[in-house]
């Protein structure tokens, strides 16, 4: 009996391995090995046609000497600093307001509507906004023209092009985080709200002292997700500005793509990718620490 049980257990383990095997092969082939290779390539000179040649830290030295890299790094950081707080705050305010004041059918309708941009692809979103932002005859300039504002060259002016990228991102993201926040607001124990109400707390006081503390774990999650996704911005830049004017909207991810697939400098691009990876890991590490402290 005992022996049979043991072989039975062994057999179950064997089945388990068979079940896990396909996903293991996929993750190994298309995720784990590529990560190791990316680190390896970052130490090589490689143009895709002749074999990779080991050159030590030269790519990293080159990257840290490159003005384009600093533009891309600075733009990426700026982009994170602008988009994350704005989208998080908007999502929070809208979620709390709908949950608190516009329950019922109208609230549900608003929620569903605000979520719609989430399912639009970055490329389609950028394509539409690009037409709307056209200097001559674009609907946004036509609208501003009504108020006597002359045509603005949105995507051809450095600071504005950058803002437009942030704008499209925020437009696309708010609904997503709002839905997560809304679920969080609904999970706040009713008694807390009612107790605060009994104590004569104003809506603002209730917001700061009941709602916000209760949503703290969700806020950490949303901020982390936002930072990580903003760090990887590519599609919108590609479609809306192509990194320009000049290098004013180039980002790290965009640089990886252009250096690898337009300039065939795969080793150099890998070095930038590894730097991007280090940033993302640092954010995860920081978030982990913050979570443990709380």
């Amino acid at each position, binding site marked *: 009996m005992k022996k049979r049980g043991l072989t039975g257990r062994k057999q179950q383990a064997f089945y388990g*391995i068979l079940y896990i095997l396909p*996903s293991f092969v996929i993750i190994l082939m298309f995720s784990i090995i590529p990560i190791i*290779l990316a680190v390896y390539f970052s130490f090589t000179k490689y143009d895709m046609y002749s074999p990779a040649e080991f050159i030590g830290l030269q790519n990293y030295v080159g990257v840290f000497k490159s003005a384009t890299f600093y533009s891309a790094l600075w733009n990426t950081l700026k982009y994170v600093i602008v988009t994350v707080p704005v989208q998080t705050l908007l999502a929070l305010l809208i979620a709390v307001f709908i949950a608190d004041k516009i329950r019922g059918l109208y609230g549900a309708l608003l929620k569903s509507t605000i979520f719609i941009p989430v399912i639009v692809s970055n490329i389609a979103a950028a394509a539409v906004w690009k037409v709307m932002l056209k200097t001559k005859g674009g609907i946004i300039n036509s609208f501003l023209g009504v108020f006597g504002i002359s045509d603005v060259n949105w995507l051809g002016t450095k600071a504005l092009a950058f803002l437009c990228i942030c704008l499209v991102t925020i437009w696309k993201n708010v609904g997503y985080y709002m839905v997560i926040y809304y679920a969080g607001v609904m999970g706040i124990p009713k008694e807390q709200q009612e107790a605060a109400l009994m104590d004569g707390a104003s809506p603002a006081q209730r917001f700061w002292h009941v709602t916000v503390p209760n949503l703290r774990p969700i806020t950490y999650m949303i901020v982390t997700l936002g930072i990580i996704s903003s760090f990887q911005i590519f599609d919108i830049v590609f479609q809306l500005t192509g990194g320009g004017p000049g290098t004013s909207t180039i980002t790290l991810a965009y640089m990886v793509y252009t250096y690898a697939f337009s300039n065939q400098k795969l080793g150099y691009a890998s070095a930038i990718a590894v730097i991007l990876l280090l940033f993302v890991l640092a954010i995860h590490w920081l978030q982990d620490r913050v979570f443990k402290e709380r």
Partner: protein
Amino acid sequence: METARKKISPMGIIGTVLVTLFALICVAPLIYMLLMSFTQLRSLYIRWDEVTFNLRNYYTIIFKNDFGRSLLNSIIVTVLACIWTDLVCAMAAYGFEKKPVPGKEKLFKIFLATMMVPSQVTLIPLFLTMRKIGWLNSYAALFVPMAGAFGVFMIRQFMKGVDDVYIEAAQMDGCPEYKIFFKIILPLIQPALVSLTIFTFVACWNSFLWPLVANTENSMYTFTVALSLLNSQHDTNYGLSMAAATVSFAIPFALYVTMQKQFIEGIALGGVKG
């Protein structure tokens, strides 16, 4: 207390107006996109009362050029990705959660760690790997890697709630292993599979960077890539470009309208991964 809640405050009205305004900003570009898609404008300096509206652009997209082909490619890849991801991830989740595999928790941690890695990091080696195995310009290149750690994680979370009693009872009855998985496990985790399908559908349909790099032959473009390249042409037919954007949006939108509840739950679950 109830009356305090129900009382219409000026703040409430202003807030409602602002949120409504925001909702309008969310859909206005899409309505604009839809309207433009019925025109053949090459300039935006127009008088709207002189513009004629027709379905010519949609005809072009579906029946002409490589556009119809790219639409078909996207549909095939997305459907394959959904089935493939569901199957591979459900199997792995079942193995991890219900089978006594030695060292499985360590392996699972490695799986989870891969979720943190940005796609640009694996982009170059993935491209070179695919080139080596001859998968560039194929459907496989696009859908096979979609079955990643996130799906395994998500289904495993759900699988924790599946009682072992069902499995044990089936084993007692001498039910073969594959039948336990297909006839007992899969039906029990159906809600998780629906969520994962929705998530995979949207992620795959909207994905851009990898299809752009992996499939560079016209006949193997996905619709999103074709849409993007259409916009980079010089003599842009704005109407055609907006019609393509509309089609690209319409397909996930149809899914959203029909399965709104599961959709939002699925996406919110996806939020755990990002």
